């Protein structure tokens, strides 16, 4: 690990200081283990999952006798073999691990084969006879809306009278666009590995953000108590929301195979199966109808959001709720209605993905602001500033939450200045006048993202901390490590409380038998929740040590100070480990559980009102692009970001989240296109066809800064803010910059329709439409 300069009194791993990821040295040398790297026991079973080839069909015949007789096959698992409940859903009970008589998407699991090798399992699976009676399939949002096919009932939030305000406003615009889904493309695919124990127990290595849910689902599936199942996660090779719910299916399958055979069992989806079988970011169709004044200030606005949820509910309720909670972004809409429909389609069940509906919600007002600016021939930043939430008034969201920490105006004005936004915008317009083929575009978009799970009960966390008699420390908590550096941050918190160097602290795998009943590591909440729980555990130990030392040395507790690896008791300097040893001999418990629940939040899911969020994270970005009007190809050339992480726990890790989140958001809005054919078969199921950003897609100029004045107004862990998801939405600026570049071909007279992802094809088609429209506008102007 990189040695950092620190003064002799400052602990290694101090909070607010940059520190490399705890696993970095192991990752670069190939020593950090992922589940598929664990040594394979000789009797390991390998599972392969047979999938539906049809989007919607009754299974009229399932004959697996040839599969059972194939070489190497030990077990064939179907719905009939499930001892408990054949479901691995997070909430709704509608995610059968094995299809029973109905399949509702291509890729749905029908049965699994367990064999001595994966090759044998795969080959055997192809011997099954599956006969279908096909049913009509609804594959798209449009079709679902037409058929009123909803997985959950529509929801609406209203305030004031949007319709009347729109009709009375001086200007009115409407807009509609689509936002595509996004595959998580975690580099490590879904995997689970189960080891059978005694009494029907199973120990599961699972790549999940939610070990507790895996534990509970597997227990229910096997019909054993929760305490029979242990789920263990050391690290994931990426997750991004894709391992919040959907890993449970595969954990259930290996647990069943292990239970029935008495042998360890592993299931690893290869890239194609992973992409075909698992859910993605929800695609949306969004509409707005807005009335506004000459300054661009919105008088009334109606939003209409419809998303493709797929075959089951999964987390679609909360995801679509969050989309509704983010169509305001940083803007106050006095008269507003937000309507949300959650479409059931015969496609994979869409799921959590970094931002969790927030990105789709937030892009709508961002396009709307640019459309208003284009219509009024004003700078889009001015329109945004005219609509920002206030601090004393105009500060209540459509869902009734008062915003107490609004720093969007400050962040935007600082970024406008540091990015030289105005002069660059002028230069771009000059360039575009003289460049017939290539056109540049620029856009600034802000972000305000609500932090907390909207389901209030998830906002709790536990930690377990042991101090051993040599002074070494073990920390465990309910948060999982997917690369985001949570383990590092939590260890820094413990180091800070106890004032010991971070290398004294062992970071251990998340497991359900150490800290129970945990929440998913999601909603950007990992360090907020688990940091606080770990702090509480460490503080408990520290308090015990202080009380012990005060008594033993007969001093007041205020005379005891923890300094780097030392404890000073008035004049006495004692090594931390020596005090620990003394405490042990005096029968002081050196193990503590910590617990935390987020204060202040409350939320009524029936009325969609309350304070669902503890606080907001903010940021803003300026993106500049260049497009080729002959081919639609483009490049993001320059990006300036100013992002609020509160008082950052670890600036190195936070910058990594900001940059990585931005690039991932850019991918969502540009090259990452999911293409389903008319039979509901995903044709982009591997990196050869599904294009996440590559190295050269990173903007050549990339200026990124943490907002220095940032400090959480709430009592979060050391005044930091959550950073996992919010930066993804900074990439909205890329999409808007592309639209700005396209708009130039009409001499900025028309604001272009553009759907996401803005592939080169979509950009070229937008350019073509605008050239045609511009020709018509010129024609009619000439005629007047």
């Amino acid at each position, binding site marked *: 690990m990189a040695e950092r300069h620190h003064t002799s009194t400052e602990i290694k791993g101090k909070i607010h200081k940059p520190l*490399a*990821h705890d*696993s*970095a*040295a*192991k*990752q*670069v*040398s*190939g*020593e*950090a*283990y992922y589940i598929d*790297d664990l040594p394979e026991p000789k009797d390991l079973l390998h599972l392969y999952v047979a999938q539906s080839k049809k989007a919607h069909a009754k299974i009229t015949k399932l004959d697996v006798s040839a599969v059972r007789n194939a070489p190497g096959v030990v077990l064939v698992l179907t719905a009939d073999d499930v001892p408990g409940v054949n479901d691995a859903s997070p909430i709704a009970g509608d995610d059968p691990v094995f299809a029973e008589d109905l399949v509702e998407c291509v890729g749905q699991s029908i049965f699994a084969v367990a064999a001595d090798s994966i090759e044998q399992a795969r080959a055997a699976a192809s011997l099954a006879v599956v006969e279908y009676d096909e049913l009509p399939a609804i594959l798209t949002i449009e079709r679902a809306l037409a058929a009123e096919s909803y997985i959950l009932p529509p929801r609406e939030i209203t305030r004031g009278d949007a319709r009347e305000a729109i009709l009375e406003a001086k200007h009115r615009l409407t807009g509609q666009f689509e936002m595509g889904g996004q595959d998580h493309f*975690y*580099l*490590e695919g879904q995997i689970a590995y189960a080891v059978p124990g005694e009494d029907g127990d199973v120990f599961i290595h699972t790549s999940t953000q939610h070990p507790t849910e895996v534990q509970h689902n597997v227990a229910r599936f096997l019909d054993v108590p929760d305490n029979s199942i242990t789920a263990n996660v050391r690290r*994931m*090779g*990426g997750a991004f929301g894709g391992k919040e719910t959907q890993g449970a299916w595969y954990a259930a399958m290996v647990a069943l195979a292990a239970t029935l055979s008495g042998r360890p069992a592993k299931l690893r989806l290869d*890239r194609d199966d992973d992409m075909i079988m698992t859910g993605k970011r929800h695609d949306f169709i969004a509409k707005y109808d807005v009335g506004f004044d000459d300054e661009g200030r919105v008088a009334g606005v109606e939003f209409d959001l419809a998303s493709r949820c797929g075959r089951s509910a999964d987390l679609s309720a909360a995801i679509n709720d969050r989309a509704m909670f983010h169509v305001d972004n940083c803007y106050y809409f006095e008269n507003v209605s937000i309507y949300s429909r959650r479409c059931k389609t015969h496609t994979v069940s869409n799921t959590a993905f970094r931002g969790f509906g927030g990105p789709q919600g937030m892009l709508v007002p961002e396009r709307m602001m640019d459309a208003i600016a284009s219509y009024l021939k004003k700078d889009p930043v001015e329109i945004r500033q005219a609509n920002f939430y206030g601090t004393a008034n105009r500060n209540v969201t459509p869902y009734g939450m008062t915003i107490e920490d609004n720093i969007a105006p400050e962040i935007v004005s600082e970024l406008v200045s540091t990015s030289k936004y105005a002069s660059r915008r002028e230069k771009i317009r000059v360039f575009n006048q003289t460049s*017939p*083929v*290539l056109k540049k575009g620029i856009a600034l978009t802000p972000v305000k993202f609500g932090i907390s799970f909207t389901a209030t009960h998830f906002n709790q966390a536990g930690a377990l901390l042991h101090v051993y008699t040599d002074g070494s420390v073990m920390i465990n908590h309910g948060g999982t490590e*997917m690369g985001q*550096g949570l383990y590092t941050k939590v260890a820094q918190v413990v180091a800070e409380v106890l004032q010991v160097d971070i290398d004294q602290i062992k970071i251990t795998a998340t497991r359900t038998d150490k800290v129970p009943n945990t929440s998913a590591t999601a909603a950007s909440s990992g360090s907020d929740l688990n940091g606080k729980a770990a702090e509480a555990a460490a503080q408990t130990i520290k308090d015990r040590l202080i009380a012990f030392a005060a008594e033993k040395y007969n001093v007041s507790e205020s005379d005891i100070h923890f300094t780097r690896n030392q404890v000073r008791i008035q004049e006495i300097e004692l090594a931390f480990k020596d005090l620990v040893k003394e405490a042990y001999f005096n029968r002081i418990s050196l193990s503590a559980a910590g617990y935390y629940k987020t204060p202040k939040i409350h939320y009524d899911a029936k009325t969609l009102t309350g304070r669902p969020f503890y606080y907001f994270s903010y940021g803003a970005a300026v993106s500049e692009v*260049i497009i*080729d009007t*002959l*081919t*639609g*190809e483009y*490049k993001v050339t*320059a990006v300036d970001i100013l992002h609020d992480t509160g008082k950052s726990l670890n600036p190195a890790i936070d910058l*990594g989240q900001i*940059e*990585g989140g*931005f*690039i*991932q958001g850019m991918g969502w809005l540009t090259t990452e*296109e999911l*293409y389903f054919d008319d039979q509901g078969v995903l*044709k*982009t199921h*591997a*990196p*050869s*066809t599904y*294009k*996440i950003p*590559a*190295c*050269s*897609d*990173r903007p*050549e100029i990339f200026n990124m800064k943490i907002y220095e004045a940032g400090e959480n107004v709430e009592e979060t862990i050391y005044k930091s803010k959550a950073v996992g998801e919010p930066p993804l939405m900074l990439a909205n600026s890329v999409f808007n910059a592309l639209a700005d570049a396209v708009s130039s071909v009409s001499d900025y007279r028309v604001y272009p329709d553009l759907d996401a992802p803005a592939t080169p*094809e979509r950009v*070229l*088609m937008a350019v*073509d439409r605008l050239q045609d429209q511009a020709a018509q506008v010129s024609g009619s102007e000439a005629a007047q």
Partner: protein
Amino acid sequence: MRQTIRFVHKGEIVELENIDPTRTVLNYLRYDIGLTGTKEGCAEGDCGACTVVLGELHDGSLRYQAVNACILFLPTLDGKELITVEDLKSDDGGLHPVQQAMVEANGTQCGFCTPGFVMSLFAEIHGNPSSGRHHIDNVLAGNLCRCTGYGPIVDAAGKLAEAQIQDKFHDQQTRTIEQLKELQQDDGISYEWQGRRYAAPKKLEDLARILKENPTATILAGATDVGLWVTKLHQTLETVIYIGQIEELRQMESVSDILVIGAGVSYSDAWDKLAQYYPDFGELIRRIASTQIRNSGTIGGNIANGSPIGDTPPALIALDSRLILRSHSGSREMPLEDFFIDYGKQDLVPGEFVEKIHVPLPSANQHFATYKISKRFDQDISAVCAAFNLTLDSGTVEKIRICYGGMAGTPKRARKTEAALIGQPWSEAILESTLAAMAEDYEPMTDMRASSTYRMKSAQNLLRKFFIETTAPDTETRIVGEGQVAYG
């Protein structure tokens, strides 16, 4: 011929027998010998998590190249040195400078792609490192990272390029070269395994003979396509004949006005020469796949497999290249365009193989350009690939050859469009009037890469772009690559 496979690994010569001919190096490492540092991310050579480095003798010296272990067949390691992420630490357990740089730059998050990046950068510092941003982009185009956004890794690469790194591999070089030389001293491999066969001859005549005996054998060069038949389509290949050990097929030379490219020449090895004669061809090679794939994949393979979206055939056909096929009974030569009969059907009879390609060198008044359109600039398969070869005679089109990939079931010339242009002034008015002819040349399909409308529209627009570039060279027309516009 030998029945075992021999390669250098961890400084020692490893000799293996009874090897599944299509066992991948990745699966060998992970599941046969328990070296799990190298990861599988896609099993198709697109993500780079499986990147390992091969050392080979090249003109007598040792050359290190990054390749994708996931689609590399184990027997093709014969005669080479294999280096994986586990091998890099120094003997006292210290991190290699590449590893150290990645840690210091915060270049890891989830860490799953990391070993692949480390190996790409390791190969790079043993090659011709440069800290130029575009150079680093090319080096890393075949390594996908979903977490970092690449910035920290680019920073690490830049710092490494500027440092003069001396590592244990430099120190061991003489010994390694000796070992590799020792491994070259026979006439190749031929063995049977469970009724299947693997052969890796070293001489052209041996290849012809073995192919005569096994006319339906799969010919293997870089395995960047054939590898996927195994890892993605799960096919069992009965007989595999590897041509990568045949020195005669790896030759590239200019003979009078022809550039001769052996069928076994990799994209990487062809790159400089093609770029020297046709800068756009160089840019096309840069955009084909990634460093790892270009190190393995061959232009001969790109032709022989007959893909309608292979990137080199349009350029080669536009340049009027000729193909030389060979078999035990002799050779025959044909215009390359005649080789592609229909989708999946080439003019290649059993027992025959692609021996070499003849590419005419540039002539006076010739304008050549080639363009590739894909969703992503790097490491993507073309939606449309276009090549234009124009000879002007005082403003009049004397000759023009236009060929597209992605517009039909084969790489195909736009003969009607060409006919409408030949003999005409090279003018915008004529060009615009001939673009309609392209709709008669092609009926492109709609698939996940592009719609037929976009394919046709962009194909026409690329001809417009070629016109602009030949008539108004000061106009900015390029976003990436040679001659790209300034971004700032």
